[in-house]
């Protein structure tokens, strides 16, 4: 992957997280501890600060380094989870990925790492509500359909609203977690959209 593409990905994800940090924190205040926006901002600030070094690396290594940067700067639940996602994606990524299949496989490996780290699965009102269907959609797609990706992410996010959380801080709320979007699902959807933006050349 071109260093410029990596930089564009870093720039766009950073922009999107900054623009929505307050929204993420608000969502987390409702059913968590009110720091998700702050956490994501800290992590993507750190990635942006290391952008030059990351962009020099081959795609897989770049993902690993970005993941490790998240792990070492975010903390909380989202740090190890997004960190594991990117690190596992990086490990599974061929040196020169040349098909949607390559990316789908790597993403699948990342999502599995999230599940392993979080001891979680779909239906527990977490970021996995977005990540899992996106992984499936990528795997099933012959060609990359950005519109479908976006819709899949949005639908996954929307589905968290009526769920009862059984993992993460929101699970302590029991029934009272119902009726709120999950903050981690929202950040996952935002990140998917940010990547789509770059692919579409926005």
């Amino acid at each position, binding site marked *: 992957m071109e260093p410029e593409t990596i930089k564009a990905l870093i720039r766009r994800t950073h922009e999107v997280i900054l623009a929505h940090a307050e929204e993420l*924190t608000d969502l987390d205040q409702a059913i968590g501890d009110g720091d998700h926006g702050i956490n994501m901002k800290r992590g993507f600030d750190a990635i942006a600060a290391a952008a030059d070094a990351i962009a020099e690396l081959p795609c897989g290594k770049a993902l690993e380094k970005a993941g490790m940067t998240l792990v070492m700067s975010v903390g*909380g639940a989202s740090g190890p989870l997004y960190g594991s996602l990117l690190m596992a994606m990086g490990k599974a990524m061929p040196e020169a990925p040349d098909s949607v299949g390559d990316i789908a496989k790597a993403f699948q490996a990342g999502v599995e790492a999230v599940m392993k780290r979080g001891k979680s699965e779909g239906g527990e009102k977490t970021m996995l509500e977005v990540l899992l269907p996106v992984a499936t959609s990528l795997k099933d797609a012959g060609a990359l359909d950005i519109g479908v990706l976006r819709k899949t992410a949005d639908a996954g996010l929307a589905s968290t609203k009526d769920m009862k959380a059984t993992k993460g801080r929101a699970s302590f709320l029991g029934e009272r977690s119902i009726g709120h979007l999950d903050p981690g699902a929202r950040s996952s959807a935002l990140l998917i959209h940010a990547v789509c933006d770059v692919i579409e050349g926005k």
Partner: protein
Amino acid sequence: MKKLINSVDNVLNESLRGFGAAHSDIVSVNWEPKFVQRAGGTAKGKVALISGGGSGHEPLHAGFVGQGMLDAACPGEVFTSSTPDQMLAAAQAVDAGAGVLFIVKNYSGDVMNFEMAAEMYGEMHEGEQATVLTNDDVAVEDSLFTQGRRGVAGTVIVEKIVGAAAEAGADLATCKALGERVNAASGTMGVALTSCTVPAAGKPTFELAEDEMEMGVGIHGEPGRRRVKLMEADALAAEMIEAICKEDGPRSGDPVLLLVNGMGGTPLMELYLVYDAARRLCEERGLTIARSLVGDYCTSLDMAGCSITLTKVGDEMLGYWDAPVHTAALRWGV
């Protein structure tokens, strides 16, 4: 938001710097990455105890670093678990050949970050390591179907008792087993009169009306069991102690350690009043109050409110509780 701070971005660093300077006889602060360790280092052959987690719960955990308690604490950002590099560096700094025991409050973030640190430490070192997960908060019901209970003020008691055992020469397996027994013997229930405000969020985590309380609140302002109308201290303490004793809590005849803990914005005068209520209620249940602790030990920023912890204690635990401790927040016998 009204806070004694400069900018929201520097709260942790400036507060930690002040803490380190005010207690330079007891601790030293490492900055990159951040951890607090005993000024004198860990004695060779002693099991090293490390705790940590989000800040905003002061004096937890850095205030418990010192002789007879922790060897190191890793403060994360406000309400955000610390990162694995902190724990890794702390473990390297304090491992004195007898292994490292991580004391971790049961939150997914804390658990995952400590797990990653433990994995990394395991890859790099021959030394033994173990983890005690604390989960004393009885407010979370149905804990089997969720993340489980949260670790709250009972963690202080685990750290004190295991700290004394480690100081007395207990090995890693013994420390871990003891920590798990203390945790299992502890139950805590909290209540909030007001929300806390995370500095970077700039506004209260939740809203409570003038006549409402949050029963079973978490120490990060997580909503609790239910929102209730303001209650008198006696009724409040009765509900809290009932919740603690209900499942597997102390029974008539049991000696207990009673901790009435302030959430950060509650004056001592009120805490002693709650202690008075709790004490009467414990005695009515036939519990023997073997030891007491009243004050701010596991806080939630500026939240007004308190928690009550009961730990069933036997002679062994009492001996360790009474053993000398010399930290910023707990000190006796030295």
